[in-house]
Structure formats: structure tokens, C-alpha cells
């Protein structure tokens, strides 16, 4: 008898048109002291299983079949036991620490309430225990901080509080649903270490649900790979990652950007086992014809001189208008602090850093979305903040285009794909003929690997990866020379990420584009860039050629980042 046994679990979501099977015949076991990883792409049903164990599936989803047993107690359809087990025997950690704590109650109240629900302790003892717990999860000055409200903690600290709550009643099982996805690499490392530590010390069974193969490699003993609600493969983590047997697992593992070397293109295998090849190379001819042949002369294309940006967070029309004026003017944040760099034709420069490092702000400053407080930007020796040469500046702006992070908000949902792509063409070529316009749009949609039929559809009919392709087509429509990619793949699944990265490399090579590639993800940066700038709190820490940076980092922060990034190779 195992500690946790899930047998033949079936969960479905009936909707109007069809019944979505979120999990099908799922079976697995977990022992105390083990960390089990459940990995899969979005929509694979991995979170549903976690919710099913504590019976918190969002309606209209329901368990249609199967059994879930902890220490031989059946949980399914057993409300009495479930209510007793929640919090007491099973602790749950959610993805986003920003939203998982009630903002109106002190940490103290939330902890004590949970403890007193399950354990027979007096208020005083519960308080003592709470402080003990906060210390255990690494919150300093716990006696004082327990009086604070959630919003007074940083993201990482909040996730610690969430974990303290999850372990407060000595549970035997912890389920963590993407516990570090919302956190920076360094904090992610700490939280994962904390979970590993607790597993050992308290002999817990832990289930970690994640999409990140690096996290799986570094923390789990066993792993389950899911796709479309099915377990396609499960087994020992090391074994599965080094030698995946199913096509689905192979496709996942092969798409993960390696952290220890640079590869030219990702070799792609579809989950069905076929090799995916890209043919965009053959399709660029038309585009090159209309753009004219470009050559890279390794000239300086863009130059940033001592750029600084300060955001002062003056809250607009603050709620408190009488007597208590909000005095927030002095809470200015220096998002970008004296940053200078140059970008040469044809190269890909990487900007890497954690949240708040100012990397996206730099992109916005270059594209003109945000005005810097200080400094100058030169594009082809033309100052972009020079008010006199308005016409030339507007023209240069068209040559700088951007690909955004969130494929779900970067396309106007009310526009057909055709209009999304043709709008910039018409804007820059006012007297383009109708035929030419159509041909242009066709060329662009071909090159990003989409069918021409998709032109007559709306963005919501496409998946994230397809939308990102449309986004690329739109960016190319202005005939840009410089393409800024702001975390272009961080919202995508790994296999899709690999496809998009390949596509970006292809069009860069063919169309002689220069790229500024922004990401928090070091392995991705390593694959894409020739040169890398490391940013921290708006300050440039280090600039080096890619391989040089990864092999011989100089700055302490760079060293730290490289050491802490989850590495899939760590166990291979």
C-alpha cells in the first residue's frame, strides 16, 4: 500500500459543444519522502489532477470515474474526509502568491485560523506555532512580521508565507501547482530548496506541477508526463529525461533549450513523432525582392547614450482627498539607470535580468513608447529625441519593430488577421495598389508559416504560438531593420517556443535583421544571442559575448544567475 494512490481517474468538463476530457485513466503512486513532478504543456490536464485530489475542481468539471486514496482512505465522493484532510493532511501551494492570501487579514490571523481549525491548540500556542512556522520557512524577524498584512511582503516572501500556511498543520502531502512560475530565478531556487528541505525533514510526499523541465530535473525523484489528459510516460526522473521513450516525452525534452551549449537550430519532433522542418527559408524570396537586397556591413545601427528613466508613482486622483493626502511623490523608482550600449547590424544582442531590471523599459524607450528622462538614442546617427527632424524620425521608427510577450493581448481581437497585417503596410506605403497589397500580405503570412486561409479569421481562433507568428508577420510588414523581441516566448509551451525561436533565427538570417532579444530565461538567451547585457535594478552589470559570459562570468550577479538557473542537464 502506497501513501497516495490514484487509480483510473477520469475527469471531464462538459461544455455546450463537447465534453472535454481533462484526465483519462490517470494512475500513479506516491510514497512519503518522494517528490513527484507532473509536467506537460498547457491544456494537458496537470493542474486538474491536483485540484481533483482536494476536490476543488472548478465547475462544471467533475470526476467521472476512479479513486484517490491516501493511506487507504478513499477521498473521492467523501466529503467528510476531504474536509478533514484539507489543510490537515494535504497542504496546497498555489501559483501566484500575490493573489493567494486574503488582503484584509493579517498573516497572524490567517495562520492561527488554519491551525485552530485542525489542531486542538489555544490561541497562545497557535500563535507560538505560527511564529515557529514563519521561522522555519525562512522569514526573518518573524515575531514582528506576523502582525503584517500580505501586501507588506515581497513576492518571494509571500510564497514563503503560503508554504508556511500549507505546512502549518503538519500535512503528509504537499501539492504545489506551479509554485515558482510567478517568481524570479533566484527566488525560485530558494523556494524549491525549501520544499526539498521540508520533504526530507518532515518526510512528506510532494507533488510539484510545472511546465519547466529544469525544475523537474532539479527537484523531483519521479516524473509524470501528461498530454491531453493522458499520462504518456512516467518513471524515474533521471531515466525519463535522459532516455524518453514516448514521442510526446521526446518532443518535450528535445525542445528544452540546453543551458550548457549553443545549438544552431532546435531539432523538432512533433508529439506524434514526426520531424518538423521549417520551410520559411524558401519563402523569403518575394519579400527580399520587394524590400531590395540588404547587406550587413557590421555598421553601428543603434546607440544608447546614458539613458535613464525614473517612474514616479504618483497615484492619480487618490481616493483619499481630504486631510490625508497620499504623499507618494518621493517614491520614485529608477527603472533604467544610466544605460549605454551599441547595437551593430546583423547581430542579436540579449538583454537579460530579473523582474524590475528595466529590460522592458529599455525596449519601450527605443521604440518611443516611453520617453527617457535623460540621455540620447541614435538610430543610424539620427537622434530619436531630436524634435527638428520629425519626418526622418517617424520614418526610422517604422524600421524599429517589436514582438511582444503576451500573444493574447498583442493582436487586436476585433481585427481580422488580414487587417492586422495590412494596416502597417498601408500606413507606410500610402499609394500601394490593391494587388500589391494582397501579394505583400500573402508573402508575409507565408513566411511565418501560416496558411493563407487564416487571413480571414480573427485572432481568438488561433493558439498562442500561431498568434505569435501573426505578430511577427505584422512586425515585418513595415520592412524593419531592427526587431526588438520582448520575452517573445515566455508565454508559450517549450515545444512551441522552440518553433518560434527557430523561425526568428530563420527570418533574421534571410532578411538580414538586427535583433534586440529580451528575456529572463538564460538558456533561451544563450541560444539566440551573440552578445549579452546583464541588467539588475536598471543598472548594467556586465556585457560580454555569449559564450564568454556563460563560461567566464565576472560580475557576482551574473555568476549567481548562472548558478541558480534550473538546468535540465544537472542530472543527465
Amino acid at each position, binding site marked *: 500500500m502506497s501513501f497516495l494512490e490514484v487509480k483510473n481517474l477520469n475527469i471531464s468538463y462538459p461544455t*455546450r459543444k463537447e465534453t472535454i476530457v481533462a484526465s483519462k485513466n490517470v494512475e500513479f503512486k506516491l510514497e512519503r519522502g518522494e517528490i513527484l513532478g507532473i509536467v506537460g504543456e498547457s491544456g494537458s490536464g496537470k493542474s486538474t489532477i491536483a485540484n481533483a485530489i482536494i476536490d476543488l475542481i*472548478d*465547475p*462544471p468539471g467533475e470526476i467521472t470515474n476512479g479513486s484517490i486514496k491516501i493511506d487507504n482512505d478513499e477521498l473521492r465522493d467523501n466529503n467528510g474526509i476531504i474536509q478533514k484532510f484539507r489543510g490537515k493532511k494535504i497542504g496546497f501551494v498555489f501559483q501566484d502568491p500575490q493573489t493567494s492570501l486574503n488582503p484584509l487579514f493579517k498573516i497572524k490571523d490567517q495562520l492561527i485560523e488554519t491551525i485552530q481549525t485542525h489542531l486542538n491548540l489555544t490561541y497562545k500556542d497557535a500563535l507560538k506555532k505560527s511564529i515557529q512556522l514563519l521561522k522555519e520557512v525562512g522569514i526573518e524577524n518573524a515575531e514582528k512580521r506576523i502582525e503584517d498584512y500580505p501586501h507588506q511582503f515581497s513576492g518571494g516572501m509571500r510564497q514563503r508565507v503560503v508554504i508556511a500556511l500549507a505546512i502549518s498543520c503538519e500535512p503528509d502531502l504537499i501539492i504545489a501547482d506551479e509554485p515558482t512560475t510567478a517568481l524570479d530565478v533566484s527566488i525560485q531556487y530558494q523556494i524549491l530548496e525549501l520544499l526539498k528541505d521540508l520533504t526530507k525533514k518532515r518526510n512528506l510526499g510532494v507533488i510539484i506541477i510545472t511546465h519547466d523541465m529544469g525544475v523537474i530535473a532539479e527537484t523531483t525523484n519521479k516524473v509524470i508526463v501528461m498530454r491531453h489528459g493522458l499520462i504518456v510516460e512516467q518513471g524515474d526522473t533521471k531515466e525519463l529525461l535522459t532516455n524518453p521513450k514516448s514521442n510526446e516525452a521526446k518532443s518535450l525534452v528535445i525542445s528544452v533549450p540546453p543551458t550548457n551549449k549553443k545549438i544552431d537550430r532546435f531539432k523538432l519532433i512533433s508529439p506524434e513523432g514526426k520531424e518538423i522542418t521549417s520551410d520559411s527559408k524558401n519563402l523569403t524570396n518575394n519579400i527580399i525582392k520587394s524590400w531590395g537586397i540588404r547587406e550587413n556591413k557590421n555598421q553601428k545601427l543603434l546607440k544608447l547614450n546614458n539613458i535613464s528613466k525614473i517612474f514616479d508613482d504618483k497615484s*492619480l*486622483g487618490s481616493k483619499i482627498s481630504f486631510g490625508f493626502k497620499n504623499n507618494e511623490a518621493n517614491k520614485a523608482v529608477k527603472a533604467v539607470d544610466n544605460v549605454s550600449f551599441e547595437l551593430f547590424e546583423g547581430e542579436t544582442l540579449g538583454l537579460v535580468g530579473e523582474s524590475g531590471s528595466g529590460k522592458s523599459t529599455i525596449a*519601450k524607450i527605443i*521604440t*518611443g*513608447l516611453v520617453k527617457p528622462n535623460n540621455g540620447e538614442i541614435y538610430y543610424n546617427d539620427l537622434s530619436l529625441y531630436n524634435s527638428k527632424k520629425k519626418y526622418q524620425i*517617424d520614418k526610422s*521608427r*517604422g524600421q*524599429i*519593430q*517589436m514582438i*511582444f*510577450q*503576451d500573444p493574447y*493581448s*498583442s*493582436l*487586436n*481581437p*476585433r*481585427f481580422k488577421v488580414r487587417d492586422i497585417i495590412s*494596416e*502597417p503596410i498601408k*500606413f507606410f506605403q500610402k499609394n500601394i495598389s490593391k494587388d500589391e497589397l494582397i501579394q505583400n500580405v500573402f508573402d508575409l503570412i507565408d513566411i511565418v508559416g501560416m496558411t493563407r486561409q487564416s487571413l480571414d479569421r480573427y485572432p481568438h481562433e488561433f493558439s498562442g504560438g500561431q498568434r505569435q507568428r501573426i*505578430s511577427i508577420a*505584422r*512586425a515585418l510588414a*513595415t520592412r524593419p531593420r531592427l526587431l526588438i523581441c520582448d520575452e517573445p516566448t515566455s508565454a508559450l509551451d517549450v515545444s512551441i517556443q522552440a518553433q518560434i525561436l527557430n523561425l526568428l533565427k530563420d527570418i533574421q538570417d534571410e532578411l538580414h535583421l538586427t535583433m534586440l532579444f529580451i528575456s529572463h530565461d538564460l538558456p533561451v538567451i544563450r541560444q539566440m544571442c551573440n552578445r549579452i547585457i546583464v541588467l539588475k535594478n536598471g543598472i548594467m552589470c556586465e556585457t560580454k559575448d555569449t559564450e564568454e559570459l556563460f563560461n567566464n562570468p565576472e560580475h557576482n550577479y551574473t555568476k549567481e544567475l548562472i548558478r541558480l538557473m534550473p538546468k535540465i542537464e544537472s542530472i543527465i
Partner: protein
Amino acid sequence: MLLKTYNKIYDTDIGYSFFNSKIAVISSTIFFIILICSIFAGVVAPYNPFDPASVSLMDAFTPPVWSDGGNSSFILGTDQQGRDMFSTMIYGSRISLIVGFASIIFAMLLGVFLGITAGYIGGRYEIIVMRLTDVQLTIPSILMALLVDGIARAIISQSMHDEMAIYVLIFAIGISEWPQFARVSRASTLVEKNKEYVSASRIIGLSNVLIMFKHILPNILRPILVIATIGLALAIITESTLSFLGVGVPPTTPSLGTLIRFGNNFLFSGEWWITFFPAIFLIVLALSINLLGDWMRDALNPKLKKR
């Protein structure tokens, strides 16, 4: 052909939700019947109550047809001037609907324009607009309308006022409802403005006017539509309230509210139908619009779309 369109509409989520909600179907049917009746009042109503030739004081206070003393030529009875209740109500609802629609369109144009520009441009302009809406919002619509009407009465002479009354009323109700539109469209604009497709349009170099009205406006129409529907009901109620208070449309062109006001004087003496039927009519009208708006709000709210 018609069936095909029906199937196509049924296939969309909104259409499905509509045809599967009895309340939505019934209320919209009632609303459209009333709307069509009032548009073609001249055809639908058996009498023209404003034609002195067809009205006879002899017929005054005829009760509805099923009561004692009822007359089959006046189904719902007559009022104190001998006008057919049914016909006056149809004509009255026409006035109510005209005022309601006109004022809500006025409020919508003003509010949406100010809201989008405030949300998009920001800065001092936004602060001023939002302060204005705050002030306007704290002044309840009835009070605002009374205020406008009071000023209008003071400026315009009595005889002119009767002629102008309907425009004054439209202006008064419209001016009291625009802040709702401004607030909603500003809030939605702020959300949309931070979406990346707006940034993309800005990077391309599109002008702000184009971004605001070609890109953002279509994306914020849904909440505006909801507000407009609920606002229409509110405008009709406000109009009837003002007319009931005697500061709305002049008695020569009575709206539903005016009719109720007249009838109220006879309530205690037993002629209940003079006030009862217009009141019911008004309630049914307002209720059907409100039900429609309520359904729309739930159907268009992605957060609650769980089943």
C-alpha cells in the same frame, strides 16, 4: 436563408446564451413589440387622442370594457377628457421612448468621447474629466434634471418652454447620465491601452485619434452597450418621474409619466384605470429593458462565463 442566419447566430456564444435564456427572449420580444407599436402609433392606435374631433368629453371616465359601464369601443376605458386610454398610452410611450433614446445617445456620445480621450491621453486632462464625472455622479440624476429644468425655466419664457420642453428634457437626462459612460469607457480604455496591440499600433506610428477610435473603441463597446441598455431604462424612468412631478413634457403631449400624474388625482375617487394602465405599461417597458440589460451584462462578462 433566415434559418441559416439563425443557425449562425445560435452558434456564437452570445447567440446561444440568448436563445437559451427565456427571460432574454421574452423581454426582447416585449420590448420590440412596444417599440414597433410606438413607432407606428398612428396605425396601431384606434384613435388619435390629440385630434380634438375624435375626443368627446361625453366619453370621459369610461371604465375598461370588462367593468360595469364599459364601452367596447374603449378597451381600456377613457380618461378625464374622454380620450381612449389605449391610444394615449401608445402615443405616450412614443414620447417616453423618444426622450429615452435621444438622451441616452446624447449621454453616450459625450461620455464615451470624454472617457476614451481621458483614459488614453491621461495627465491633467484625465484628472479634470474624472473630477467632473465624480462631481456629476454625486449629483443624482433626478436632481440634475430638475436643476437643468429649473435653469431652463428661468431662462426661457413659459410659452417657449412648452415647445422646448422635450429638448430640455433630453438634455437634462442626457447630462445626468454621461458620467456612467465616461467612467466605464475610461476604465476599459485604461485596460486596453496597456494591451500590447495598442503598443504595437503606436510603434507602427499610427496617430492617436486612429488608435483611440479605430483600435480601442471597438474593443470597449460591450460594456458600453450594457450601460446603454440599463441607462435607457433609467432614462425612461427618469423622464416619467419628471413628467410625474410636472416638470417634464407639457400636458399637451403627454408621456406615460404625465398620464400617471393625471390619473393619480382620480385614484381615490375610484377611477383607478386612468393611472393603473399607464403605470403597468411603464413597468413592463422598463422591466423588459432591464431584464435584457441584465442578461447582457452576465452574458458579456467573461469572468462569470463558467457554464
